[in-house]
């Protein structure tokens, strides 16, 4: 199957390994991945910060870019859009049409809905569209999984990431206490309400450390940026045993041939 990748602005800029892993994983499973270079950002940060009008051109760009990728033309032929982020998937599904409608562009809203219907978060694409839970990965590490609020409650990916992780060879998957509680990132919330956000992060980091895991994984580079930032700071006092933050795509992309300790945190 030909699949168009929406890598997300955040992964593109600060976590490129997430995009690389997504491409390698899907290619290993025999699919073709295309990356439409006109893509930028889903616009969620602007919507959530109270600037929906500024998000409109970004929504239009997303819709036009992936309409083309999913269309009949020379740049087309993709059957689905994959996003290695529950949060951006949620935004595409629940905010794009609304942003267009608020701006009075009902035609764009209809097109946004059509593109959103073919946009899938990575675990959804694998389990629901490609019908695979064992992706043939090998990851001999103790891992705990943070489900991320938007994957869970906005994109509604359910336990698909856990189904995929359970099938990974060599993995020691341990439950995270209070897994469904927010890590405190929330985009600009982490800066606007820094004290509250830090208190949430501290509790999440101690829950992660309590599992004895080497790695905390999630399906969102944004939450991992937050968790990784907190754990990195913690490691200055705790030392080398502090867990690293690794995206779900990287774990699923790892094989016996790789050196998993090279994955970044």
């Amino acid at each position, binding site marked *: 199957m030909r699949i168009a990748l929406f*890598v997300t*602005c955040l992964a*593109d*800029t600060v976590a*490129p390994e997430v*995009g*690389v892993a997504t*491409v390698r994983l899907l290619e290993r499973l025999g699919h073709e991945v295309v*990356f439409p*270079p006109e*893509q*930028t*950002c889903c*616009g969620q*940060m*602007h*919507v*959530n*910060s*109270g*600037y*929906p009008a*500024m*998000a409109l*051109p*970004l929504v239009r*760009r997303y819709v036009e870019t992936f309409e083309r990728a999913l269309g009949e033309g020379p740049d087309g032929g993709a059957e689905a859009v994959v996003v290695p982020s529950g949060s951006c998937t949620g935004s595409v599904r*629940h905010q794009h049409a609304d942003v267009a409608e608020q701006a009075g562009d009902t035609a764009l809203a209809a097109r946004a809905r059509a593109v959103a219907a073919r946009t899938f978060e990575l675990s959804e694409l694998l389990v629901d569209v490609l019908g695979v839970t064992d992706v043939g990965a090998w990851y001999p590490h103790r891992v705990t999984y943070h489900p991320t*609020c*938007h994957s869970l*409650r*906005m994109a509604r990916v359910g336990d698909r990431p856990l189904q995929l992780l359970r099938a990974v060879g060599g993995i020691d998957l341990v439950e995270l206490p209070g897994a*469904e*509680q*927010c890590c*405190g*990132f*929330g*985009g*600009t*919330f*982490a*800066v*606007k*309400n*820094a*004290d*509250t*956000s*830090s*208190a*949430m*992060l501290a509790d999440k980091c101690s829950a992660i450390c309590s599992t004895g895991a080497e790695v905390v994984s999630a399906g969102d580079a944004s939450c991992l*940026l*937050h968790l*990784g*930032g*907190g754990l*990195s*700071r913690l490691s200055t006092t705790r030392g080398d045993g502090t867990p690293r933050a690794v995206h779900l795509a990287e774990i699923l992309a790892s094989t016996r041939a790789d050196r998993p300790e090279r994955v970044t945190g």
Partner: protein
Amino acid sequence: MTTFLGMPAAPPPPASSGSHLRGTDSFPHAAARTLTDDQLRRNLAHATTTIRGKRARVVAEVPDWEELRLAGEALKADTMARLPELLEQLEAAVTARGGVVHWARDAEEANRIVVDLAGAALDRHPQAAREVVKVKSMATQETRLNDAFEAAGITAHETDLAELIVQLGHDEGSHILVPAIHRNRREIREIFLREMPDVDELFPEGLTDEPRVLAEAARLRLRRTFLRAKVAISGANFAVAETGTLSVVESEGNGRMCLTLPETLITVMGVEKLVPTWADLEVFLQLLPRSSTGERMNPYTSMWTGVTPGDGPQEFHLVLLDNGRSRVLADPRGRAALHCIRCSACLNVCPVYERTGGHAYGSVYPGPIGAVLSPQLTGVTDDASASLPFASSLCGACFDACPVRIDIPSILVHMRAQAVDAHARDVDHVAERAGMATVAWLFRDPRRLRLAQRLSRLAGLLARLQGHPRHLSWLPGPGRSWTRTRDLPVPRGSFRDWWEKEGRS
């Protein structure tokens, strides 16, 4: 020739300034105080975790929970869609059964009505104390009725145990259902010893901090008050338009004492507390107790319709409070906040509330529902109200917990846009808007994004200066809020660079 387009219509006024709906401090500042109070944070985390667990267990028992939520949502939406007509129906039904209905535009008007009514009732008993008993009324907390009573020389006794603790502690409630959630039993004992002068008489062997002993002390005190009170003030959980029936649900039975013993009963309720028919109660009386206290049924459900000669209060007044509610109703994107049945499930699952407690919200309605309801009722013209919609990480736990499916995260986002627009010209907000506009401009063109990505790698220089090649542990400006507790990785080449390098494009 000119065309007459009609008279311009002004929106209904916001809640009056005398309401307890906004604080003086913005949320981040108010929260900072609570976040440093370790005892308070432990009290809150313990209480919310316990209620959360209880709620999850009893909700899981109900096979049709989602259908009940959908029914609750639909009933509330229908009620709001024809609120004026249903309120008139309620007024007619209450009047037909011997009650008197009063309409209050704002807090001052509601307080004036209630104080006048109570004063007149007390005048008939010149030998009795100038006092009233109160139960279960967030509406009168909203209007600060107790202050109005005090100014009129009337003492108002809160009779709900948690409300009593808050009142005796000269404190504000910090939770919708458990106003004294922020107090532990040691603190409650200290309050009782200080504020109940006769407590030594009641407990000659000394007041301990055992919950049973503390409750008994409150009970003995309240019992005497109930038996002598001539006037009671209550809130209402529901009002049935069809029959004119009012209802209060509670755990301790103090409400039932208030509703049955005094001669005069005055109920104050927000206009949104309406349900169209008696049968609608079956939905809400299932949703409310499980969501609020994690119980299958609340211990006391009291219902009364008008007056019954020779039985119970002989005079009944219903005060219908607007105080900004018709303004909320006028906003189709925000009005679902009026569907709230005050169960507090959203507070108990909210990670922000759990850390900050209710006082940080500056309103009688704290937590996620308060963050959308309070600023809608007051408008977002001041900093304190405008900061409330941002007091959330948008994690969405509140929406999933809400028994009537209020999409709180979407309303928060809607209110953020209102707050941003209302403060567009403020100096503090100009920099933020410029930053947002710059980022939006970069994202409008992939070439600009790419340039920004390349420039961002200069951060590596700063990181090396700080002694770590791969992450920043200090950022200037607004980024300092981030790096106070977290590192930031240094960008090392973008995904699109890799894609090109691989020769894929």
